[in-house]
């Protein structure tokens, strides 16, 4: 192999086989431009080459989910003329390098995926994974990511309403930043498509000028930046939420005025991916002159322009007669627009540099013919034991809890979500203080529910169990608030897919999620895959983050997640599918025990839980709060419900139970607080009479006391301040 070729393979990150395939498709040795195009579009991020074969398993659809194959984001029909589009995306590696901008541009990117369809973004959420809080740079990374999400989200005017923050040492060298957005279509509102059409139509570039953002000669892998030399530094993509806000308004306005045939945002691989995908989907060609691209830096080469990841840019197709009104609208919003070329029926993308032809290539060769790999994997060997669960012994509960506070495992993260504007839009009913966010839909007044899922400790214990839980748990949490799960998006974060053990985790997760989504009648309609979260052979735990939307009849009277007043009864409803001790175990000892209940039973139970809310309202059952029992069991859940001056006492009713059981994970159980014990217990027993549940009083709420058991007593004031401690 010539040294030139081996250099190119390294710079453009293509394998020898991929190069051979590219050469065959082109029919000649690729030129620099062609290397760039294939490199971008055949990257894992753009082509999904290692995952596509498995993502087909998410094919389940129902009457609410029109099939929009290959669109930017999934759409759910909510009835009453209302629709939503939603999707989740990762921005992991950039956030590790520059956390503020990495997270900010992650938020910006996912918002564009939503409004490129013509939906107004109305809610944002995030899913974050950090390493050990004491690991090098970790505090700096956490603060930076939160700052990035908050500064971008707040300025762009979309409320950040829910999220999840996880910690595990396996994320030390690879943090995860996943951003989710939900957009709304009202009745009569036009949806935009991304397939180009109409020979003679114009290809128009709108938004920010193109600069060198994201273009780099040197590899971004090593983060040693002591060297002042400018050329060695990566060109960090900067997000400008102000610009994005202008772009949102301008794009929605031109769509409303019906000035646009098709639209796509310039995301990863910027102009390259948007132009090739639009033309390939529309089965048309383009003639584009790269010299017409508005530039921030006039010394940029055509390669720079094609690979630039400058933010806040869109590509539109419009009819020639609509151009001047389109450009005026963008000008009104202080945004650039430039005609780059036109649509042609000859199915080739012809890239020009003034008069010079850079390449003339069939977009399908790159998009449709992208490689697809069947990476080797093993069928999943699940951690299913049916022998009795052995409770760990000799646990110092007090120091366990202290450690949990120290490692942020018990942190309430108020210091994080108090930096997010949760109420802009005046739609928010419940937000970050609750497990499930609810926003009021403009037209019908119903409540749109949003929750994220995927619990690190379960994923580490067993990828398949964790992946089932990633779907069931948010659906369960939603059900407790009276909301029914409608649809799912995912962000599948995994390590190196070329390693069979990682690929096995991936396949097991995808299959578990697909199966759970069918059980719940909540199709997976959009998603993202982030592979290669690996540094120096160390891979992240399997992390299939889930975003779930649901529906509630109204936004009125949603029960809170916290204790409301002292002298109330705490009642637990326990339905077992899985028991484990993720809290009390170190990583080495993984135990779990499945019951006889099937997945259909879980789905049925969740459905029955969802019917609870309306019934308790109708029958005036004085339930004051409701919460799913999380990992760490009853004890940890009650700890998390402490609010104001209200604590709890579990010591009398559970005094016959071994202390370790108070910390045992019991999927899926929940607790309620109520002022009328007998009425509530008989109500719950009647409601769940067809289910193998255990319903009993487990404790009471008390003023300024935390008694987990007779021996585990915590100081109220210290504990409260620990919850609220932030970075």
């Amino acid at each position, binding site marked *: 192999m010539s040294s030139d070729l081996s250099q190119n393979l390294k710079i453009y990150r293509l394998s020898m086989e991929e190069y051979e395939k590219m050469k065959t498709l082109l029919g000649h040795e690729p030129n620099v431009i062609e290397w760039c195009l294939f490199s971008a579009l055949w990257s894992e991020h753009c082509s999904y080459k290692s995952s596509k074969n498995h993502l087909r398993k998410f094919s389940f659809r129902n009457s609410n989910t029109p099939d929009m194959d290959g669109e930017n984001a999934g759409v759910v029909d909510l009835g009453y003329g209302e629709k939503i589009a939603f999707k989740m995306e990762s921005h992991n590696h950039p956030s590790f390098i520059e956390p503020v901008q990495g997270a900010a541009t992650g938020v910006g990117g996912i918002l564009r995926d939503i409004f490129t369809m013509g939906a107004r973004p109305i809610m944002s959420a995030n899913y974050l994974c950090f390493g050990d809080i004491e690991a090098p740079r970790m505090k700096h990374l956490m603060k930076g990511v939160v700052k990035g999400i908050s500064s971008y989200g707040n300025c762009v005017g979309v409320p950040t309403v829910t999220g999840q923050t996880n910690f595990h040492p396996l994320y030390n060298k690879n943090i995860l930043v996943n951003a989710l957005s939900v957009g709304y279509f009202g009745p009569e509102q036009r949806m935009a498509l991304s397939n180009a059409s109409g020979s003679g139509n114009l290809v128009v570039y709108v938004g920010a000028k193109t600069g060198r953002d994201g273009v780099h000669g040197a590899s971004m892998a090593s983060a040693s930046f002591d060297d002042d030399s400018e050329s060695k530094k990566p060109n960090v993509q900067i997000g400008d939420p102000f610009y994005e806000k202008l772009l949102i308004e301008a794009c929605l306005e031109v769509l409303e005025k019906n000035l646009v045939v098709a639209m796509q945002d310039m995301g990863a691989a910027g102009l390259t991916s948007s132009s090739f995908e639009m033309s390939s989907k529309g089965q048309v060609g383009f003639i584009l002159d790269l010299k017409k691209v508005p530039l921030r830096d006039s010394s940029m080469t055509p390669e720079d322009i094609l690979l630039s990841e400058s933010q806040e840019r869109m590509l539109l197709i419009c009819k020639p007669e609509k151009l001047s009104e389109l450009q005026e609208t963008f000008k009104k919003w202080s945004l650039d627009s430039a005609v780059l070329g036109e649509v042609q029926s000859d199915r080739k993308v012809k890239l020009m540099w003034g008069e010079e032809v850079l390449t003339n290539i069939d977009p399908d060769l790159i998009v449709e013919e992208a490689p697809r790999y069947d990476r080797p994997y093993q069928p999943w060997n699940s951690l299913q034991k049916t022998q009795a669960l052995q409770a760990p012994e000799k646990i110092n509960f007090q120091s366990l809890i202290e450690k949990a506070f120290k490692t942020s495992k018990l942190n309430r993260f108020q210091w994080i979500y*108090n*930096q997010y*504007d949760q109420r*802009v839009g005046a739609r928010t009913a419940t937000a970050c203080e609750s497990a499930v966010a609810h926003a009021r839909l403009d037209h019908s007044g119903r409540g749109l529910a949003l929750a994220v899922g995927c619990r690190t400790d379960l994923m580490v214990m067993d990828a398949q169990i964790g992946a089932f839980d990633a779907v069931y748990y948010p659906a369960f949490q939603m059900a407790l608030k009276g909301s029914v799960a409608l649809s799912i998006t995912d962000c599948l974060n995994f390590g190196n897919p070329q390693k069979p053990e990682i690929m096995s985790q991936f396949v097991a997760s995808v299959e578990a999620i697909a199966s759970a989504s069918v059980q719940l009648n909540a199709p997976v309609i959009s998603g993202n895959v982030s592979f290669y979260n690996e540094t120096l052979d160390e891979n992240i735990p399997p992390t299939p983050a889930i975003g779930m939307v649901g529906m509630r009849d109204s936004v*009125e009277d949603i029960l809170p997640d916290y204790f409301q007043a002292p002298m109330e009864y705490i009642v637990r409803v326990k339905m077992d599918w899985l028991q484990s001790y993720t809290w009390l175990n170190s990583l080495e000892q993984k135990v779990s025990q499945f019951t006889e209940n099937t997945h259909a039973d879980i789905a049925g139970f969740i459905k029955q839980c969802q019917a609870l809310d309306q019934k308790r309202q109708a029958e005036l059952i004085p339930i004051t709060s409701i919460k799913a029992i999380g990992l760490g069991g009853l004890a940890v859940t009650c700890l998390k419900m402490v609010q104001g001056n209200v604590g709890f006492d579990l010591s009398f009713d559970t005094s016959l139970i071994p202390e370790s059981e108070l910390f045992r994970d019991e999927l899926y159980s929940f607790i309620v607080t109520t002022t009328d014990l007998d009425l509530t217990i008989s109500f719950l027993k009647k409601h769940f009479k067809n289910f193998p549940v255990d319903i009993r009083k487990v404790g009471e709420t008390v003023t300024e006391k935390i008694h987990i058991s007779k021996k585990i007593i915590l100081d109220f004031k210290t504990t409260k301040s620990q919850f609220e401690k932030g970075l």
Partner: protein
Amino acid sequence: MSLNVGIPRFLGTNCDEDVKRWIESKGFRATYLWYEDRFESKDFDWIVIPGGFSHGDYLRCGALAARTPVMKSVQEFASKGKPILGICNGFQILCEAQLLPGVLLQNKNLRFIDQWQTLTVQNADNPFSKMMTTQQHIRLPIAHGDGQYYADSETLQKINNNGQIWLTYDENPNGSALNIAGVTNEKKNVCALMPHPERAQFEWMGSSDGELFL
């Protein structure tokens, strides 16, 4: 009684739709006023400047918005003694436009703060407090990064004596001088506050005390 309310819209204004819906829910007529356009004072009864991040909050909050054509008309409107309400970024813009005393600095903890606040009504003698009584406690949400009210001691004394302190925080979240959450001008026709009344219209939002303002 139906009022004509003008709602200025700058590049980056976020809470315009929220404010419009709030105003219209009262049966008033609300019209957006584009930042590049002038308007006639006689066409409107009230002007309400909504929150958001006008011009990205760049340079200084409200600084660039304050120097736009629509604000020239707002100045005229103010000089005629007609009522103006500024919310959050609206407050910042009115200060930059010198229609209100003082300035809003970055929050003391240097972070954006989103949380519910209990406020006390100090003076209720302005067009937007007809349903309030002095010393009344109300609950409104704040969401801002630059809400620390500052004025020099002479100005603070003056506005205090003149009854221009409209609302104060019961628990100061951002370091504002004299716990100030909202002020009025000397003539008491220009009023502004950092909290968001339009986000407290219904109990399901968390509070309905925003209704006291219209």
